[in-house]
């Protein structure tokens, strides 16, 4: 079973040299820590920055320089700043190669719910609806089951949707899945170290597809 950092580490392997990447809040943010040094990756922050760097050293924080989570950050050489409309322009026009975000539920057809729980106070979708509607390459980073022990990989989402037929890859603490958005199904492609196909099957409520030999993740 992977911890949050393990999930981030596995996702980092999906990032290729030259990619522009948008990282959501939560586990996705941790992915930045595992990008290999030998590749060149540009992080996009949807409030208007390409080339996001690490947090500043104490005393070097700048109120005018934050990420989409409102955290103080730095800019790397080659950075570019732009307005919010241009930021979502590059997202909508698929200039950003990879989007990594969290989810509350994903359906076997690649629908995603991650912004609203009826009866609870809604804080808003931020940029999530724009990202899932437009990005060509989205990876969901999430726990396989919720706090009540119920699978988050479902035949259909029960929560209000953020987007439809848009999630094609999911990485959880147990496995890596590819989602068949046309026919419906979670195709198990990798198991976390020490996790059996049966364990993953038992934690997947939607249609589960696995070949005989499912390899273990290489981290």
């Amino acid at each position: 079973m992977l911890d949050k950092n393990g999930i981030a580490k596995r996702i980092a392997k999906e990032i290729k040299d030259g990619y522009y990447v948008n990282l959501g809040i939560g586990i996705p943010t941790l992915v930045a820590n595992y990008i290999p040094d030998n590749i060149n990756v540009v992080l996009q922050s949807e409030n208007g920055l390409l080339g996001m760097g690490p947090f500043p050293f104490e005393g070097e924080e700048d109120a005018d320089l934050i990420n989409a989570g409102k955290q103080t950050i730095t800019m790397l050489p080659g950075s570019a700043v732009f307005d919010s409309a241009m930021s979502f322009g590059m997202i909508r026009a698929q200039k950003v190669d990879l989007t990594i975000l969290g989810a509350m539920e994903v359906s076997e057809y690649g629908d995603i719910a991650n912004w609203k729980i009826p009866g609870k106070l809604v804080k808003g979708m931020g940029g999530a609806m724009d990202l899932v509607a437009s990005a060509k390459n989205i990876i969901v980073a999430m726990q396989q089951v919720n706090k009540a022990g119920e699978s988050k990989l479902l035949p259909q989402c029960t929560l209000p949707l953020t987007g439809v037929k848009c999630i094609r890859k999911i990485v959880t603490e147990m496995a890596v899945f590819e989602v068949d958005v046309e026919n419906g199904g979670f195709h198990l492609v990798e198991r976390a170290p020490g996790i059996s196909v049966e364990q993953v099957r038992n934690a997947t409520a939607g249609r589960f597809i696995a070949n005989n030999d499912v390899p273990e993740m290489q981290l």
Partner: protein
Amino acid sequence: MINKVVNHAEEAIEGMTDGMTLMLGGFGLCGIPENCISEIVKKGITGLTCISNNAGVDDFGIGLMLHKRQVKKMIASYVGENAEFERQLLSGELEVELIPQGTLATRCLAAGYGMPAIFTPAGVGTELAEGKEVRDFGGKDYLMEMAFEADFAIVKAWKGDTAGNLIYRKTARNFNPVMAMAGKITIAEVEELVEVGELDPDQIHTPGVFVHRIFQGNSYEKRIEQRTVRSV
């Protein structure tokens, strides 16, 4: 040239009355028009519809207007941690319309570019699409979203000149340039106001044609919402 320079926020918001629609630039507390917000609070203008990405925090930004119950309706993409906001929302005192961040920015952009509406894939197949026109372009569905109309757009820039030309600093740019283009009356408050000729025309982000009133603000607090640092 008509004089756009006003002395302070009080003069800048002249003509702003109860029930108007305002656009307010900023992302979180970054790049918000602090001086104008203070003045609106001081004047006690009420029944306002505010278009802004966020709603400030309890004791800063638009949160100050919420505390004095000046906001009737908030149009935002994310309202964050704001106890007074939650209380007013749950009691029904405050109307809230949550929209995707890209839709918010592009509805401002459309207004500024003189276009009545946009088509965006954001929200297709979700509850946001209810009651909206959906159109298929090349096999993909898009929602029609209308350009915003705002009586005032209030933006914050780093530098400006007396002709209203503006330059923003780092990510404090965010929604400010698109909102600056979108107001019936646009107010710009700047950290440093200079004479014409002092800014390099090649570096201008917002041309002065969009700005009706400009002033040099004072006592900028520039509060940080999430101070994060790395260990040495």
